[in-house]
Structure formats: structure tokens, C-alpha cells
């Protein structure tokens, strides 16, 4: 199991134990993390599971693929550390990953 931490815009933190192979979006929805809407259910088709990856984790998480980068055009306040959480797969070396939920989704 891999530990993930979500930080809401109001500062509230949510720590979850995630199964490897699941997505950061799925774990947020399963544990009721507010602000991750995931309207399309994880198809990389809506940009409503947008998160900011903690600066320290950016290298480990890696860069979005072209399709995700396209979809990020629809997100709100996109920054260099923006990712769609449905496209980040949980794996061992992400143990301790911290992501921030934006103020709003699109």
C-alpha cells in the first residue's frame, strides 16, 4: 500500500492508503476528498479531477502525456505542476505523494 495525501484549498488534509495500480483520482473519490469531481469517470475526457502535484514530487510523478496536456486546457488556473489525477497511477515509489486540490474544477 502507498500513502497519499490530499490537501484541500482550505488546508484540510486527507491521508489515504492506496493500492498500487489504482489512480490518484479513484482514491480521492473513494475516500470522499472534496473538490475532485471526475465527471467523466476517469477517461481523461473532462479535466474535473485537476490537482497540483507538490513541487517535491514533480519529478517522481512525471509529465503529462499529450492527451492529458490537451485536456488540461479546460482546467482552471493551470500551473506547471498541474496534472489530472485520473492519469496518475499509484506505485511504490510514490509513497508519501502530496497533491493539492484547486479552489475549483473548471
Amino acid at each position, binding site marked *: 500500500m502507498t500513502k497519499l495525501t490530499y490537501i484541500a484549498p482550505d488546508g484540510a488534509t486527507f491521508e489515504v492508503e492506496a493500492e498500487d495500480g489504482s489512480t490518484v483520482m479513484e482514491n480521492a473519490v473513494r475516500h470522499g476528498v472534496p473538490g475532485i469531481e471526475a*465527471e*467523466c469517470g476517469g*477517461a481523461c*475526457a*473532462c*479535466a*474535473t479531477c485537476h490537482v497540483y502535484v507538490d513541487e517535491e514530487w514533480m519529478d517522481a510523478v512525471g509529465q503529462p502525456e*499529450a492527451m492529458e*496536456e*490537451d485536456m*488540461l*486546457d*479546460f482546467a*482552471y*488556473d*493551470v500551473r506547471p505542476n498541474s496534472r489530472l489525477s485520473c492519469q496518475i497511477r499509484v506505485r511504490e515509489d510514490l509513497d508519501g505523494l502530496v497533491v493539492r486540490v484547486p479552489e*475549483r474544477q*473548471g
Partner: protein
Amino acid sequence: MKEAIRTDVLIVGAGPVGLFAVFELGLLDLKCHLIDILDRPGGQCTELYPEKPIYDIPAWPVISGQELVDRLMEQIRPFEPQFTFNRMVAGLERLPEGGFRATTDEGEVFEAKVVVIAAGGGSFQPKRPPIPGIEAYEGKSVFYAVRRMEDFRGEDLLIVGGGDSALDWTLNLQPLAHRLTLVHRRAEFRAAPDSVNRMLALKEAGKLDFRIGQVKALEGEDGILRGAVVKGPEGDFEVACTRLLPFFGLTMKLGPIADWGLNLDENLIPVDTERFETSQPGIFAIGDINHYPGKLKLILSGFHEAALMAQAAKRIVHPHEKVVFQYTTSSTSLQRKLGVTR
């Protein structure tokens, strides 16, 4: 008021569940008319994920969203469903003599004995970009669609986005505009490469501006736009403009359904699990938009709901007919309706 289009069943939403409802209702001799805000059938399947594989449609180990919709269209063809696209059902009222009158956002009128809401996540609407105070400019200086190009002649246009809508309107409106600026978050575009190349050629020729950035504030008063502040890679800059056209894709909103006098639970419509009828007799809700204990938002659940709803709708439309349960494999009368036997 336009003359009413009459049908047995008015289906609000032409996604997979609305389409399959045509089949189940058709087997029971009920004629259907479907209304959808998109310009083609399929709902989320064609709008959000036409090429994505679906793995949980019975007997289809894998099928794409578009292929599922194409197959459903083929399956319901014998029942000659009627479609009205690019329209939203704005109003719905019960008629004193029974049945319902529905009015679209463009003023068309429909009269039906039964209404089936198969509206999924709601109607697709343009996404409002998260710019503070943008609401005050909407309809005066900010537009999410171009209805008449002439309305933009001689204006200083700011178009925002990197998809086909943004690029197509940049190319179409550039000759009319006094000045046109395209703003997009990055140098890469989702839009067709040909459109991007044409836009870049116009930029080279000095006929439009292209800037990288995200709009963060608007300037003006009483809905009259003067300019926009854009956050760029090297800091903020201003773009003078009198019209703003943001193209940030579509989102789903419940919309006018909330005003039809139905009981709602959050943004869902509670139904019973025998008839899938709403709190208003004669109005049914199937697919992702309904809710009942144990509800699963799966296409296959919507198909089941459509079959049971059809039985209840039949009793409303043809109250004196006896409904005999039949299988399509063996019933010649059903096969005749499907056009597979004489």
C-alpha cells in the same frame, strides 16, 4: 406559438439509454421523438469518449463509445424515431386533457402522452471560464457561441482556447474583426494542425495577435468590455478588447429540468424501481439521471430501466390494450415490427 409536433413518447436526451428506450417502446407500438442539446445522437458516449473502449456492455467484450451509439441507431431504425438536435427542453407542462406540452429553448412545441427523461448528467453547456465577474458581461460582451458572425464586425475580439472551436472562429472572424487576439495557455494546440498553421500565417502577416497565457481579469463596466488582463509566462499583460469569446469545452448542467415540478435528490430524480416513474405520473426518468436504492450508473442498468419503463408507458398511452409479454426470438408480431419477417 409554432404548431405542436405530436408523438406518443417524448424522450429528453439521445444518449445510449434514450436510444434504447426507442427500441423497447417501439416493440410496444409507441412512437418516439428525441430532443438533445448536442448536434448528434450518443450523449456522453460521442461527446466525451467516442474512441474510448467500454468493457461492460453484455455480449460486447469491448466496444467504443461511437460504435455502441452506431449499433443502437441501427437497432432502433425500424421504429423510425424522430430527432430534434441542438435544442434543450426548456419548459414542460401537463395538459388538462392529459399528456404534456414541452417547449424548447428555440420555441418549438411538442405534445406527448408520456415524457421520458434520459438526460444523463444533464445538458451539455459551454464551460464558463473561472474569471471573476464574467457573468456581468455575458450576453453583452462575452459570448460562448457565435450565432451571427455580423454581430462581431468591427469589434476588437479576444478569443481564448486551443481547440477546434477557438481556432475555427479565429479564422472565420478575423476578416470581420477590427482587431483579433487569440490567447491560449501554451504553444501547442488540440485543434487541427491545418487550422493552427493558417492562424500562424495570419499572425506572421500581422493580421492577428497570438499570445500565450490565461485570462485572469476583465476590465469594463455595465457589461461593456474594455480589456482583459492575461497572466503570461513572463508576467501579466493587457489585451484591449470589446468582445470576448471563451472556448473551454462543455460541462453538464441539470438545467431547466429542475423547474419541472419533480422531486429531486441533489441533482438526481428519484424513481420507483418497478416503473421508473418520477414524482409526476406520466414522467419517467431512466439512466444516469435517476436515483433509487442500489442505483448503479451503468449503461446496462439504463437499458434495464428502459424495458420496465416501456411497460408502464404502454399502459398510459394505450390503457385499453392488453400487454402480452413476448420474446423477439419467437414472436412473429414483434419480428414484423422489426422488419425481419412478413
